[in-house]
């Protein structure tokens, strides 16, 4: 069985960044496995701009951002396999994959990095009402059809859910001549970035219906119309139904980290993030297996994915150099009032070099509040926030000095 230092599963933004970083740590015997016919991942279909402002200090489109990393990976001569699907992670951290050239193959590594990205919640996930006509698909599917293959999936479109891909597709389909009649969001606030509400909806006068959802889908073979209703506490209000004649309903109702192979390998997932539980070094509950990018938790910016994957890559290097200490009583991170999750989920103070970066999301929209970091009775840090929303990931940096005050747990809450 061929043996590598590291195998990275998934050749999107996370896998590319992690692989390059691990190579730079001095480990060149690595393999990157990608299921698509080229490297780059979902960035390749995200042809809009707004990527790279943090990492490259310039505004790039998705394909441009991906190509920079693919070029670097190829220049370094890092080994990769395309059109190859990993089917299993074994207990000894060997993996099984299949492709049309190698057939079924088994390879081993001292460390694995999970960078499979995420998938879109689909119609089944929200038990969507009505019939099952053609014309109901996820925003990302429509994006691939349009931007990669060149097919516009419909002419009269409604979008359910205000996630970023839905907003981006509202603009994209409008530009290609479709009429986008509206975007419905069941919550009182949008699930997408503010800039996308402005440049994708307001620029084209596309209405955003907050506190609304689709309560019926009508159509025999093809979608004919949808019914939109106002909601209160997630329940449709009778009498508020409005009918829209459409041939397409796009769903932009959330992303879920892709972790089927992780779960099958016994890796424990966080119920909130749906990604693996990791420590300060991005190591999962299975020794030698690391996770980063959207497979770990869904990010709003690819730049953050790159930064996280570089940190994870450095940790993999430390692991291979036997510099990471293991412990049975890591400090547990506890999301408290107003915080839905924190990544990493636990930390071993011995492994923190100079600072610790924590990433979290809030449960609702907040204005002029304070984030309070505390350990049991001891307050460690207060950070004033002008505006926070669930769609925008928050970051808290703790110094070694801050961490010296931590006892057994570390909590974060939102205070008015």
């Amino acid at each position, binding site marked *: 069985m061929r043996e590598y230092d590291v195998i990275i599963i998934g050749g999107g933004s996370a896998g590319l960044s992690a692989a390059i970083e691990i190579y730079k740590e001095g480990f060149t015997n690595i393999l990157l496995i990608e299921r698509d*016919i*080229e490297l780059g991942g979902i960035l*390749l279909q995200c*042809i*809009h*701009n*707004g990527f790279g*402002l943090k990492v490259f200090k310039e*505004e*790039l*489109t998705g*394909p*441009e951002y*991906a*190509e920079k990393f693919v070029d670097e990976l190829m220049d370094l001569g890092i080994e990769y396999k395309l059109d190859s699907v990993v089917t299993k992670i074994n207990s000894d951290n060997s993996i099984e994959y299949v492709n049309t050239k190698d057939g079924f193959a088994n390879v081993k590594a001292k460390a694995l990095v999970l960078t499979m990205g995420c998938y879109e919640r689909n119609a089944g996930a929200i038990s969507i009402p009505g019939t099952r006509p053609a014309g109901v698909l996820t925003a990302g599917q429509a994006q691939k059809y*349009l*931007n*990669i*293959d*060149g097919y516009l999936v419909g002419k009269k479109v409604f979008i359910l859910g205000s996630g970023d891909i839905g907003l981006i597709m509202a603009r994209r389909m409008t*530009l*290609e001549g479709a009429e986008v009649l509206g975007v419905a969001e069941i919550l009182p606030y949008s699930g997408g*970035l*503010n*800039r996308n*509400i*402005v*440049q994708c909806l307001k*620029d084209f006068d596309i209405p955003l219906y907050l506190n609304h959802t689709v309560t019926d889908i009508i159509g025999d073979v093809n979608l004919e119309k949808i019914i939109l209703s106002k909601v209160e506490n997630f329940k449709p209000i009778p009498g508020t139904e409005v009918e829209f004649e459409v041939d397409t309903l796009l769903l932009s109702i959330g992303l879920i980290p892709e972790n089927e192979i992780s779960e099958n390998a016994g890796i424990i997932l966080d119920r909130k993030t749906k990604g693996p539980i990791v420590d300060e070094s991005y190591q999962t509950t299975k020794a030698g297996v690391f996770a980063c990018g959207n497979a770990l938790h869904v990010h*709003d*910016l690819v730049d953050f994915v790159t930064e996280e994957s570089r940190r994870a890559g450095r940790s993999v290097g430390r692991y291979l150099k036997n510099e990471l200490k293991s412990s049975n009583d890591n400090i547990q991170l506890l999301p408290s009032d107003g915080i839905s999750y924190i990544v990493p989920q636990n930390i071993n103070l011995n492994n923190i070099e100079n600072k610790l970066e924590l990433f979290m999301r809030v449960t609702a929209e907040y204005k002029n509040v304070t984030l309070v970091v505390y350990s049991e009775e001891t307050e460690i840090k207060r950070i004033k926030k*002008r*505006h926070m929303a669930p769609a*925008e990931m928050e970051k808290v940096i703790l110094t070694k000095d801050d961490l010296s005050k931590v006892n057994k747990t570390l909590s974060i809450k939102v205070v008015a």
Partner: protein
Amino acid sequence: MKKELICIVCPMGCHLEVDIDNDYAVTGNQCKRGEVYGKKELTNPTRTITSTVRIKGGIYNRIPVKTDKEISKKSIFEVMKLLEGVELIAPVKVGDVVLENILDTDVNIVTTRSMK
């Protein structure tokens, strides 16, 4: 008069306040680009346009392109019309100029990926 805007320069989405009577003074921005955006958005709004054009002989039939500078928001659909007639032949490199000086604006259409 003050106008509230959400900055679209980067995904941070800063909440700006622009004082129109005070020479479009911008507050709430976290970087210099927000200041420029706030003023421009209320005087001459511009956007980068991204789309795709046909390509022959590549691994796909479409290739993504963009305007290499921002262009007036008003000409978005005119630019889309221009792209309809374009067909490239693979291989192309990222940044190759597809259309030069569109609508006499000094803006070019360039590819945003390489394709073999």
